């Protein structure tokens, strides 16, 4: 469903992502971890078509994000780290706009809008202008909009920022249910507990390279540390000392 094929991305003379290859099959929830400046946001921007790779290919459901952008977007749902809404639209109007954008027939669109309002508990403010929403309310609306066309692939950038514990539970349950139905989820997060709880596989990026790809158990195995937390493993893997040692060995 998602393919990164030897992707490299430069920012001027700086390389943000280098020779990144990854394939995520249907129904998998993948979590991308890494310290600030590791290249996670660049990877996500390439996956949603905001950035073009300097080299390599990114494909969603078989559609190249550069040559077949529009077709790829029809299969994608995206929740950015900072919710972007129209202040002068109500939640219902925004959902209608997004539903129409994906060409969902009107009768079905209305049903989906009600479904998402129900699912993300937007009733109370569904007909208020978005300019009056709190950050959490905005984030819930962005989630509702991302799910409205039942995408094959969902891309989430720091999805839980601004959500209260109740909303976090809703999102987690929904992601589990949808992945069970075949949706692929690509999630970037700093919340290690969430990655540990939700992800089928995880990738840890450091300085533009994928330093680890696999499950938590595989990470323990690779690091040769037993019975320790993901936090400990993560800090160990991304520490400057480890990187220096690996670079020396290379």
């Amino acid at each position, binding site marked *: 469903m998602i393919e990164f094929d030897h992707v490299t991305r430069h*920012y*001027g003379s700086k390389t943000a992502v280098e020779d990144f290859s990854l394939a995520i099959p249907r129904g998998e929830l993948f979590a991308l971890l890494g310290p600030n400046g590791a290249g996670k946001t660049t990877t996500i921007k390439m996956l949603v*078509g905001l950035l073009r790779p300097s080299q390599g290919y990114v494909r969603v459901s078989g559609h190249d994000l550069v040559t077949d952008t*529009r077709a790829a977007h*029809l299969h994608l749902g995206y929740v950015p780290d900072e919710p972007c809404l129209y202040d002068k*639209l109500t939640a219902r109007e925004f959902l209608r706009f997004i539903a129409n954008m994906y060409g969902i027939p009107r009768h079905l669109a209305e049903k989906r809008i009600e479904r998402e309002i129900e699912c993300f508990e937007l009733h109370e403010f569904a007909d208020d202008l978005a300019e009056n929403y709190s950050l959490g309310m905005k984030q819930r609306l962005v989630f509702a909009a991302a799910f409205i066309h039942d995408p094959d692939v969902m891309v989430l950038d720091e999805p839980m920022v601004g959500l209260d514990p109740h909303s976090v539970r809703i999102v987690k349950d929904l992601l589990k249910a949808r992945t069970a139905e075949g949706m692929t989820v690509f999630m970037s997060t700093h919340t290690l507990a969430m990655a540990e709880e939700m992800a089928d596989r995880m990738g840890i990026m450091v300085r533009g390279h994928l330093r680890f790809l696999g499950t938590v158990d595989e990470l323990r195995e690779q690091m040769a540390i037993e019975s320790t937390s993901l936090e400990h493993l993560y800090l160990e893997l991304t520490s400057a000392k480890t990187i220096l040692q690996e670079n020396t060995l290379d």
Partner: protein
Amino acid sequence: MANDRPLPGDMHPLTHEQEGRLLLWLRLTVAGHTIGTMFREARLRLGLVGLLSAIFWAALFGLFFEAFTFIDSMHAEVISLLFNSFFSALMVMMVFSTGILMYGGLYTSEEAKLLLTCPLRSAAIYGHKFQEAFWFSSWGFILLGSPMLIAYGLVRDAPWSYYAMLLPFMISFVVIPAALGSIICMLVVAGLPRLRIHAVTISITIVLLGAIWRVWSALNAAEAETLTTTWFEETLSQLTLTEQVFLPSWWLSSGLLDAALRGETADQTWASSLEAMKFLGLLVANALLANLLAGWVAQLTYRVGYSHLQSETPQRKRHARLWLDELLARSGSRWGGPLRLLLVKDLQIFRRDATQWSQFLIFFGLLALYFLNLRSFTYTYAYASIIGYLNLAVVGLILSTFTTRFVFPSISLEGRRFWILGLLPVHRDHIVWSKFLFAFCGGILPCLGLITLSDSMLGIPRQTLVIHLICCTMLCSGLSGIAVGLGARMPNLRESSPAKIAAGFGGTLSLVVSALFIIGVVLLVALPSHLDLMRRTLGVVPEKNLIGLVGSQTGIMLSLGLVVLLGLTATFVPLLLGIRAFRRFEP
């Protein structure tokens, strides 16, 4: 590999027309809610904008009507040249303004980021953002152009078809430079991402220098006395460069002139209208072609350009403290330490916020340019005196727009960061006083400089200059007091944008109070000073009545005293109200 997974059955990719209709629905819905909110929450501002626009329109109409009547009776042949110069200048300005607006709309706005992740064609996103830029860059043309063209039609007794063709002429003309500006913007971003700022800066500088040189040489080439027939003809002959048949401005000018012609017979009028329609057709065809080309360029370059632009890593610049900051922070005794530190902070923010100082520089720079050109004309004493006071009012009005736009929101913005200042050992009063001092000190020097320049160009006597300088000082103090005081009394903590804070009720009230204060100050001092100047110039002995008293030295001193009193009231009453409110302020 491609298309290995079909779309779910309930999704149908939109056609070009459906995308256009959907984005139009979005624009209309957002506009509807915006207008609704303004009617509910900003009636004062809306009413004020409507009223001022109507007054502005009527004043322009009157001015153009008189001007066209004068030109029609004496210099009818120069109308074509005037139209060509006006429309070609406007065309150049619109290319730049739309280009800059499109850059903001297509490449840096949050909306663009949202739309680019949706299944929309690049051309559709371009079209959507073009509508916005087109509106913002053309409303000024409609506001300025409509009174001019209607006045021209009335003076020339134009047939009804002239008025019917006005709007289509204006719209089709405006689309051409707007589309051209958009194309240039997209090509520069896609092709020369790193050079875009230099490219735009160099182009604007060349055009500005060219325009200044042209106007300067046109004004200075005339050796004869100003405002005579010869002077007009010599000056306008400098502008024949704008009469080029391949320019849309020429098509518009020629079309309008033909449309306004009323022949001796109905057939002659019809023939002229038909000729005008040919020009309108030419403009419409070119507008459509330009729009089509722009859409095509967008389809090819928009996403590439957007991606290129994201590649640029912002240059890290180390912001060192200037000697002025050090001097301010360390000068004087221990008294006022926190106040001085707050001033240094505001100074650093102002210096690093290009929006603030660039607008300050542009407006005051243009004013200085206008004052420098005052010496190109000759004046009688009465005329010079009136212009001097009008210039004083203009300086005050320009300053009031700055105090409303930048100083008024400053307390609201501090309120949003109150957790920083609130935890410091700084008295709350100091925060308000520091804002006032910053605004006053920032405004006083350029304003005094401008008034001195204006008066020296007008040849105004030294005593009147001193009066003007005292009034200017009071204006700076009062305007700063009104903006800071009302800003502290009516803070808006919900908005993070200073422009939106200034556009709210408090900002509008601050602008209205500032305008009334300026009118009060200028009227109070202008009348006695002007009467005194007239009396002394004409050598008349003052009469022993009220007019004589007003126009005497005593009257001047009295009016000056009243100005100082009004200035101090405008400074301290809002400030004290603001300070009292700010002490009780709960973020």
